[in-house]
């Protein structure tokens, strides 16, 4: 087993450290490594030295003690490190100095649960603005969901942005409300003339209390919430949450349901990529492509509404399967759609890849190097445009991808053009995958009876969403109620990447750089 070999390598790298690798059915295929808090940083350093990726961190306030988890990945093998914390004074060595990707997630945990990350290089708050006080930690079990917020929370104007000194340097502050129809966030540029020297993003504006709201819900209620973590990734988050709950409960999902879930996930990928390619073109003034891709996306969404009951595919999954079956007529309609989309895309792609004024704006804009992308844990199209090929569907395949050949497009120029190109290629791959799935849809039911597991059962869900590896951790409490839900959207890694790739570009190119990266606000703010 790959995970076992990865765990062994970690053990070999840390002689004298007590690591007890074990498996837990709900957390498979990851291997669990229990370490003491004192060895937490040593394990992180060893993982980093082995070239492993820091994938996620969450803290679970269990009834007797708190448990911290970090997920590491290397070549498709997963190791879950865990350690116990004292709820009266939860503290843990920070990994942010080793893994830049851990920086903001650790700050978010510090805000929500009051875990002291020792040695964290950044003492500033992240998800907390002015709606609750520094000593309040809303995700702690004793805190009521309602909290004790002020009647009118003031704007977070005192947030200490990094300052860049210099004669000609000026600051440009943008947001939280942006010029277009976009999610809210704040961007602080330091610029000389038109050229950006630095960018700092400040998010948390759409913090809605997702993790707190999950506590006490049953499976169905949790899925309604998971479907709304990020509206553009509703299938990805719902599938990850389903997978976590089903693994926790040992629920065997029928093959037909798994095939349909993959179909839905690929449909979500295509819809988002169509929208993004049009959006990228539009941000450099090429509205022709925006209109064309907008029309393609609209037709795609309409088909989703007809066959699956929702234009964005919300609430299409249920614990144990999917809600809607696909009949023969539906299958035929989809196959025809795919052929038509291919035929319509081909000439458009020709234009996009061979239009001088587009090339002028997209090639060489917003370059993210491979080393930076790796250091920041970039996933999905963002990683694949910068030389990182990781794709769960191929490298750690879960059913039904374990019997499907998944091509992974890879570019290394790391610019806006590459991020657009990856999306176009991925539409192709998705169409192929869907054709293969539809050609051999397994017969049988589309869901199985869901029975919640006993208290204490926990599960991990990992799926390749359209932005990349999408994670959900679920622990059940009594009566089939969720005690902890920790989702991690791949879009959280996009913001530090945007900060890294922007300097040297002109501020007017920020929109297209931002669109090409397309991080999730809602998915990270929770």
């Amino acid at each position, binding site marked *: 087993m790959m995970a076992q070999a990865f765990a062994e390598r970690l053990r070999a790298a840390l002689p004298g450290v007590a690591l007890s690798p074990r498996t837990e059915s709900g957390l498979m295929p990851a291997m669990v490594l229990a370490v003491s808090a004192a060895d937490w940083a040593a394990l992180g350093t060893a993982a980093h030295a082995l070239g492993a990726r820091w994938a996620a961190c969450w803290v679970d306030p269990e009834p007797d003690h708190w448990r911290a988890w970090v997920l590491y990945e290397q070549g498709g093998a997963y190791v879950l490190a865990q350690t116990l914390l004292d709820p009266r004074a939860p503290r843990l060595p920070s990994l942010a100095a080793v893994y830049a990707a851990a920086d903001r997630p650790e700050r978010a945990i510090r805000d929500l649960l009051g875990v002291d990350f020792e040695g964290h290089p950044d003492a500033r708050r992240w998800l907390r603005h002015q709606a609750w006080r520094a000593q309040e930690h*809303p995700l702690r079990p004793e805190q009521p969901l309602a909290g004790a917020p002020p009647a009118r929370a003031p704007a977070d104007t005192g947030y200490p942005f990094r300052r860049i000194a210099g004669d000609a340097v000026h600051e440009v502050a943008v947001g939280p409300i942006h*010029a277009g*129809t976009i*999610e809210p966030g704040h961007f602080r540029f330091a610029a000389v003339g038109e050229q950006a020297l630095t960018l700092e993003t400040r998010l948390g504006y759409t913090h809605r209390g997702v993790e707190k*709201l999950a506590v006490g819900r049953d499976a169905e209620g949790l899925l309604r919430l998971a479907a709304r973590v990020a*509206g553009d990734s509703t299938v990805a988050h719902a599938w990850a949450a389903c997978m976590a709950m089903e693994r926790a409960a040992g629920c065997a999902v029928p093959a037909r349901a798994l095939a349909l879930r993959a179909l839905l996930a690929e449909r979500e990928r295509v819809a988002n990529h169509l929208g993004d390619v049009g959006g990228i073109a539009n941000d450099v003034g090429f509205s022709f492509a925006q209109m064309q891709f*907008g029309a393609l996306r*609209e037709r795609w969404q309409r088909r989703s509404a007809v066959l699956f009951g929702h234009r964005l595919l919300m609430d299409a999954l249920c614990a144990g399967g999917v809600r809607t079956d696909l009949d023969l007529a539906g299958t035929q309609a989809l196959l025809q759609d795919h052929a038509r989309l291919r035929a319509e895309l081909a000439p458009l792609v020709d234009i996009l890849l061979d239009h001088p004024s587009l090339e002028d704006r997209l090639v060489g804009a917003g370059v993210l190097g491979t080393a930076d992308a790796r250091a920041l844990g970039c996933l999905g199209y963002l990683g694949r445009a910068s030389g990182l090929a990781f794709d769960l569907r191929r490298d750690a395949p879960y059913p039904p991808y374990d019997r499907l050949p998944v091509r992974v497009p890879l570019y290394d120029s790391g610019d806006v053009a590459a991020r657009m190109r990856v999306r176009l290629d991925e539409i192709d791959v998705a169409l192929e995958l869907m054709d293969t799935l539809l050609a051999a849809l397994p017969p049988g039911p589309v869901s199985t009876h869901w029975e919640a597991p006993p208290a204490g059962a926990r599960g991990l869900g990992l799926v390749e969403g359209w932005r990349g590896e999408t994670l959900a951790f679920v622990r059940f409490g009594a009566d089939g109620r969720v005690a902890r839900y920790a989702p991690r959207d791949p879009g959280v890694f996009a913001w530090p990447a945007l900060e890294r790739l922007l300097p040297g570009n002109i501020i007017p190119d920020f929109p297209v750089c931002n669109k090409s990266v397309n991080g*999730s606000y809602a998915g990270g703010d929770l």
Partner: protein
Amino acid sequence: MLRILHRVITTGTLTEPLDTSASLESLGIEVRRTLGARYAGSFAIRHVDAGSCNGCELEIHALGNPYHDLERFGVRFVASPRHADALLVTGVVSRHMQEALLRAHAAMAKPGLVIAAGACACDGGEFGANYASLGAVANVLPVDVRIPGCPPPPALLLRGLLAALGRATP
């Protein structure tokens, strides 16, 4: 260039007529009258995401695609609330957006309409009010028009926006 022109010509016009139901037709007439009389033929909307999951935004984007072509009604999205006749609010109002939303509303010329779009904005949806969220927009601002749905599909958004216009009597 020729390829682009060829594509434009072969694509033709995708824009769909409004739903042919009688109520919408009369709505159309009313809208045109109101637009002409009160807004000089143009209605400007400032959208504010006050704490959405981004689903509502995707459908608002779809209003601009060739099938819906919102601008044919003289309705368009503007960057500044100062240019806006209406605030279109999506999402619950997160406490972190409360102040920004109130300021955007205050910056609008009076009388400005407030349109709440989506289940979250209408009644709190899946999130409701809690330590981080104020729930429905009406908990923060007086709301003139509600457009339900999670998210409201573009046809419904269109209808809701036009209804807002029709409702806007001096």
